């Protein structure tokens, strides 16, 4: 079965020859028309459309956007803020960057529509600190949109005013965690807040109700308002509506980003048909389907169980290649769709070394606020680094697993899961490689590429 065709909604104009990031080009392609129509409708109707669409957040957790909007405390009398989470930092993920760099007005339009729907007067785009150029592009785009009365006071001549500010991130992965992001935006260290009581929908930015949405999610909102929530549900599969952008990196012939209706493409189709399969002479070994914190999948393993198809429960028996790329199917096989960062590893990769790399990242990015993540992530890094660079002991793999088990579910934010799931899943799926690493290390070729 060959792969279905791409359906580019969000990435419609990405890499399109001649398409530029300025307002004129965006208007030429029908820009801000959706917003004009949205402004003619009551805001609640727009929220209802998003609810109807079943849109799930594209930042990684897949939380339904309409539900998130529904949780916002609208009776407090305090202003409601909207924050665009553009702190795209999950290793293996590179979708938001392209939207902001090449099609910034799409994001601005989606943001203003969402602000209008939620009666937000002030929105912030919290852009990853390293994306300096993106911040400049967005600033320029907002200035253009402002001049054209798409942003700022009395948008489109209406009574509605809304400002968008670009805020450059503090250069840390944890700034992408929504409460960490809020702290950072307030000018503090990005230490995530405890929930309860600090749910952003009630006590967010400056202790006011706050909506934090991913860049891609807000672009979807624009599309939903354009075609209607009902039509949106026709794309993809039930509960996994709309399109998903997959950022494929690693050992495939054609890495890159691909947009497909959610759930209509399997891992096998994506990797073999779309990305051209493994490099010559190699075979796939493992794939991480949703950004580096998602649990790894090992080629050759089988996933069995029952799943709901329509109203019936049917058995499934999948290999990695057969798993549909949607939130629910990936969750069913013990991993997650996450941010859509598909990281492919072939048989040249030593899994201990791959994990050492991931552990180094997470130990560097732990904010250090709460104990299990702060100490556990560095300990795991120290163990895996020592295994790779120094003396791997026979008991190290089991210790690594045991340390990882002490972290998830006990931390303030989901970073605890993010930093421990790789170790847990790598060990679970590649136990042989870990347990045998102390011996294997002695026979590794001396001229192999070494980890930094």
């Amino acid at each position, binding site marked *: 079965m060959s792969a279905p065709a791409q359906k580019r909604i969000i990435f419609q104009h990405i890499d399109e020859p001649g398409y530029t990031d300025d307002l004129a080009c965006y208007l030429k392609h029908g820009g801000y028309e959706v917003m004009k129509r949205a402004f003619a409708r009551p805001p609640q109707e727009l929220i209802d459309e998003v609810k109807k669409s079943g849109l799930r957040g594209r930042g990684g957790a897949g939380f339904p956007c309409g539900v998130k909007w529904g949780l916002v405390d609208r009776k407090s009398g305090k202003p409601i803020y909207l924050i665009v989470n553009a702190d795209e930092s999950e290793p293996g993920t590179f979708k938001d960057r392209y939207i902001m760099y090449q099609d910034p007005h799409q994001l601005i339009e989606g943001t203003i529509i969402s602000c209008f729907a939620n009666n937000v007067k002030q929105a912030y785009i919290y852009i990853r600190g390293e994306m300096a150029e993106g911040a400049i592009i967005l600033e320029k785009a907002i200035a253009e949109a402002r001049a054209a009365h798409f942003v700022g006071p009395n948008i489109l001549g209406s009574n509605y005013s809304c400002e968008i500010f670009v805020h450059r991130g503090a250069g*840390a992965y944890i700034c992408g965690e929504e409460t960490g992001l809020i702290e950072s935006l307030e000018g503090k*260290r990005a*230490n995530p807040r*405890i929930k*309860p*009581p600090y749910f952003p929908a009630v006590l967010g930015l400056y202790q006011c109700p706050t909506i934090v949405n991913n860049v891609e999610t807000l672009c979807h909102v624009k599309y939903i308002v354009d075609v209607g929530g009902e039509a949106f549900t026709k794309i993809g599969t039930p509960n996994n509506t709309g399109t998903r952008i997959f950022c494929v990196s690693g050992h495939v012939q054609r890495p890159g980003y691909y947009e497909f209706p959610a759930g209509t493409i399997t891992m096998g189709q994506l990797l073999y048909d779309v990305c051209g399969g493994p490099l010559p002479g190699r075979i796939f070994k493992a794939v991480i389907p949703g950004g580096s914190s998602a649990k790894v999948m090992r080629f050759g393993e089988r996933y069995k169980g029952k799943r709901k198809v329509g109203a019936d429960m049917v058995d499934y028996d999948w290999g990695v290649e057969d798993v549909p790329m949607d939130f629910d199917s990936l969750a069913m096989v013990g991993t997650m769709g996450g941010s859509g960062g598909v990281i492919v590893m072939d048989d040249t990769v030593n899994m201990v070394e791959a994990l050492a790399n991931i552990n180094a990242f997470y*130990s*560097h*990015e*732990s*904010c*250090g*606020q*709460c*104990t*299990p993540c*702060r*100490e*556990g*992530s*560095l*300990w795991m890094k*120290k*163990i895996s680094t*020592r295994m790779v660079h120094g003396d791997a*002991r026979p008991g190290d793999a089991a*210790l690594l697993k*045991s340390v990882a088990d*002490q*972290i998830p*579910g*006990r*931390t*303030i934010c989901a970073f605890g899961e993010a930093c421990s799931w790789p170790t847990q899943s790598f060990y679970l799926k590649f136990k042989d490689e870990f347990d045998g690493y102390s011996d294997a290390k002695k026979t590794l070729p001396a001229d192999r590429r070494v980890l930094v």
Partner: protein
Amino acid sequence: MIQPAKPELVTVNIDGKEIAVPKGTNVIEAARMVNVDVPHYCYHPKLAVVGNCRMCLIEMGMPAVDPATKAPVIDPATGKQKINWIPRPQIGCGTNVSPGLHVKTTSPMVKDAREGVMEFLLINHPLDCPICDQAGECKLQEQATGYGRGYSRFVEQKNVKPKRTQLGPRVTLDDERCVLCSRCIRFSRDIAGKDVLGFVDRGSYSTLTCHPDKKLDHNYSLNTVDICPVGALTSTDFRFKMRVWFLKQTNTIDTESSVGVNTVAWSREGVLYRITPRQNDEVNDTWMADSGRVLYKQVAAADRLKSSDTVNILVTKAAEFFKSGSVAVVGSGRSSVEEQFLTKKLAAALKVSVSLVSRTAPGDKLLISADRNPNIRGALVTGLISELPSAQLTGLAADIDAGKVKTVVSVGEDLAAAGLTAAQLAKVSIVYLGTHANATSAAAKVVIPTLTVFEKAGTFVNQQFRIQKFAKAVPGLAGAYDDLVVLSKLTVAAGGASAADEINALWTAIAAEVPALSAMLYKNIPETGLLLDGTAWAGLPFAEGETLHYKPAATI
């Protein structure tokens, strides 16, 4: 005495024990009420909850109800309402009680979570205990023993951080020992109002430090040492002086001002080593000023007054000057209630009235009030005075100039500091009862050395009209005499009736004679004090402004 309002109660179940606790109580405090210890580091009852140490993870559940009918779901096995246990452990500090909340603190999940967190806290913690000042009062030691696994699986290099940073003039920091609980940061920012501390770097390399160009030099900096659960923040004054388990703790009161901060004096073999605050939720919470912590140094000061004469010889000498009449008595707002009671007796025997000296300076709005006498209200309560004193003894000065006064008995007040000139001091015979040398003791005909607050027992009445007692921490200096004994003997020498000179016996007389203190005995006063009815003096122009737990009458 004023009773607090009855709070709304919520019934919770902790390890099978039902207890009703006030609404808004968190689970750690609720557990404390049924004697269940929930270990924690970052949580402090007087600070904002941040939930970062994860030591207080416990299992929680709520009674199950049918989502549609709201009817309780009954577990057929037990016949009781089913409990929906949350699959993940929850933090006790950040969870407030709700009706029907069930808590398990001894389940395998909780034990595992505690062992995990304990292990994580210890892997990068130096093995300093044998030379660490916190040993003996270290939460890390205690909870590692109580809740840790007891062995180490860590074979890597520990992190290296600064070992002896001077955060300010009184606080030394060992960053390697820090468990990053952020109590000190929150205290400094939220209680002391000086946002000077923060973390730099990330993850396990996070390091506590002062903000650039800032120092931890405010007058409450040593509270960070008290609340530091480990040996990271230590008192530069106290560190390496004495092991805490050798020290005897005595409850005492800070004499800096009329706030009456509750404190503990730590001593060994008659030598004081440090003063720390003692919790009193109505007065000082768990805080005290740095300036009050060095007061113990006055005990062993070089200028302490002492005499080689016995107290009887000194009293006889003093009594010689009483014979001529024309005596004036200067009492003190620093004296205890008991001393003021006896000062009044002495004045009555001499048939004169008593002047006091007021001592004011701007308050700090926290725990140092504008009235720097600890016991002006004691003098009002005992009837030693009926009006507030002034800073200068102008009346006495005029009397001396007019020759109306020939002898002045000063109970601990430096008359020179209270405005009397050297000529005026020379013109009269001075009997000085005091602890330290000053211009008055130098000019006195008779000096009767007395005891500091740490060497005697007594009570003070603070700005709230709360009578609070202090106990004797160390034996009195040889050659100095108990104020009560001295005043009692002087009273007899002046022709008055004999009064008890032992505090418990004296209180029988005080309770009988002082209306506000009737039905009260020294030994019965709780350690956190008793609130007296101060309405009789409500109209007086007291100097105090607002401080922690105190609002001046005019602003209520």
